[in-house]
């Protein structure tokens, strides 16, 4: 698993344990967590579905980001 950006379970648990009653400060981090998880799972998909290595992923990201 390419852990280019990983989140500790305890961190996510801390962010989400307030459930639907999240206060803003916690909620902002939660959204950040959602972004991090999106990137983490995208890297996983790139590795497992396309067989890309970390360097190829970085190149692909750079190409899309530089347009």
């Amino acid at each position: 698993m390419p852990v280019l950006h990983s989140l500790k379970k305890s961190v996510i648990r801390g962010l989400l344990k307030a459930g639907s009653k999240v206060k803003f400060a916690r909620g902002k981090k939660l959204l950040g967590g959602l972004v991090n998880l999106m990137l983490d799972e995208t890297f996983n998909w790139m590795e497992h579905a396309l067989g890309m290595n970390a360097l190829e992923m970085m190149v692909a990201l750079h190409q899309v980001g530089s347009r």
Partner: protein
Amino acid sequence: MSLRTDKRMAIPCLYYTHYTVLALVSELSGSLEEGCKAIFEIGRKVGERLRPFIKDLSPEGVWEALFFRSPTRVVRKGEGWLLEDMECPLCEGMELEEGSTYCHFLAGVLAGALGREVEEVECKAGGGKACRFFIH
């Protein structure tokens, strides 16, 4: 979009990351259609990872845990639900072809978190009044 000052950094971060990731996976998949399928599956994995940490696993509860507010409306439809949100954070300001859908990632997150099949049936980006997700 009615956001309090503090939220203005978090939601654009999600918005632009999603936009870039969708562009990336579409290019790598070879088409936008395949990219949409891929980002839905990425969303599902994200939802599955979030699921153990969300207390209220109803459609409203998951939405509230993600965006700290309720969706505009949730209506029971047969065995499923129709979740409707008029201020969807992913597609605000996007304009696509009439009838297109854009929030596949969000549909995937809901699918993973709720453990159900979810389909985006209408999207603001495609000219709809709201983003509507059918939860089977």
